[in-house]
């Protein structure tokens, strides 16, 4: 009787060992399966994003020269180049920061507002990209969103001001993979153009340029009357602005 009990216990432990081995095997295989489903960039699923035409910036009283010092990704997205995960994925061919830089530079250059280097620039732009690509939509269409914040800085006075820009675009969803890729590309390009337009034609940039170049010696020389010379003497202005930026 005791021998039979020992046999049963042995068989039970063998079964347990088999089940646990099966579970272990399944666990070890799962990440491999997950990795196989993870989309990989290929020439077929990679899209090229660029502005169809440069965005004409607004007219400034005295056209300043801008220089893009830095473009920083603040999206917190671990895969910024992957814009769509479904259907084998859709990838960008360059980093969003590079695309944003090229789009803004292209538009500034077309309007002759781009400085060739940092020392010759009236204003330096530091761009923080908060969102680039698709955002959650209704599921019936693609919702493209490009959002960035630009720190406009006067290198001479060290004053700076923040400008925000946002672009959105909505494009129809598609069934065929080729059409999905085409629509996603058009959608992100639309959102990028909208964001660049929002930045370069926005009232925020106008305000920033006006207030930052107020104390600029070159700007005061260009402006009629001696109003700027008086303002230049008021150094308090710059300090206040600097502390605001530091707080942020």
């Amino acid at each position, binding site marked *: 009787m005791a021998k039979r009990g020992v046999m049963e216990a042995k068989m039970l432990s063998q079964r347990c060992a088999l089940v646990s081995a099966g579970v272990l095997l399944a666990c070890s295989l799962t990440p491999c399966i997950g990795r196989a489903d993870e989309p990989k960039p290929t020439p077929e699923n990679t899209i090229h994003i660029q502005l169809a035409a440069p965005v004409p910036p*607004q007219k400034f009283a005295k056209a300043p020269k801008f220089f893009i010092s830095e473009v920083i990704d603040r999206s917190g997205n671990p895969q910024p180049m992957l814009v769509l995960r479904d259907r084998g994925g859709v990838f960008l061919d360059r980093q969003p920061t590079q695309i944003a830089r090229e789009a803004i530079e292209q538009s500034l250059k077309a309007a002759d507002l781009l400085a060739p280097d940092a020392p010759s620039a009236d204003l330096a732009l530091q761009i923080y990209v908060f969102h680039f690509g698709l*955002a*959650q*939509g*209704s*599921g*019936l269409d693609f*919702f493209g*969103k490009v959002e960035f914040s630009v720190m406009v800085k006067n290198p001479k006075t060290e004053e700076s001001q923040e400008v925000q820009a*946002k*672009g*959105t*675009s*909505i494009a129809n969803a598609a069934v065929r993979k080729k059409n999905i890729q085409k629509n996603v590309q058009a959608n992100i390009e639309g959102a990028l153009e*909208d964001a660049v*337009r*929002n930045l370069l*034609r*926005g*009232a*925020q940039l*106008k305000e920033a340029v006006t207030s930052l170049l107020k104390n600029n010696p070159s700007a005061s020389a260009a402006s009629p009357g001696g109003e700027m010379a008086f303002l230049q003497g008021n150094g308090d202005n710059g300090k206040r602005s600097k502390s605001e930026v530091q707080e942020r």
Partner: protein
Amino acid sequence: MRSLVIVLLAALVFAPGLAAKDPENVYKTVEAKHFTRVEGVELSPAFTDYLYAELRSELAKTKLFVQVISEGEAVEDADAANSVVIEGAITEYKKGNRATDAILGGYGVGARSLKLDVNLTRRSDKQDLGVVKVHVKVSPRWNEEVMAKVAAHQIAHEVKKGLKEKTKG
């Protein structure tokens, strides 16, 4: 005689179409702003963004405006008199009830509901061009973005109707 009949028939065929044709590009620009929320409206922050994007997309479809500009975009002084600004507020949002909707959904009971007040103003002199009140009811099974899509469509339709009446009068 025959030619007269042809002319008459052609007039009967084409005249209603021509009369019903909507005026195109009456206004130079339209700027849609992000809608504000009255206290107590519990919607995700992404909702306002999506509503803004959908509204711009729907306003472009009305063909009443040459350009739908983004929020805060500067407009040429010459175009300001012929430009419209759309501002609005979400005044009420009810989540709805799935169970009630499943039983009595046909009567609109248990539906998700959204109320919005929209103000239209002329850009140059801030003259009031009208107020649009929109009430959207959708199934609680649909997500917020679908509700935004329906709301944007309805707002654009009402804006078009209001502005068309304004231009006629």
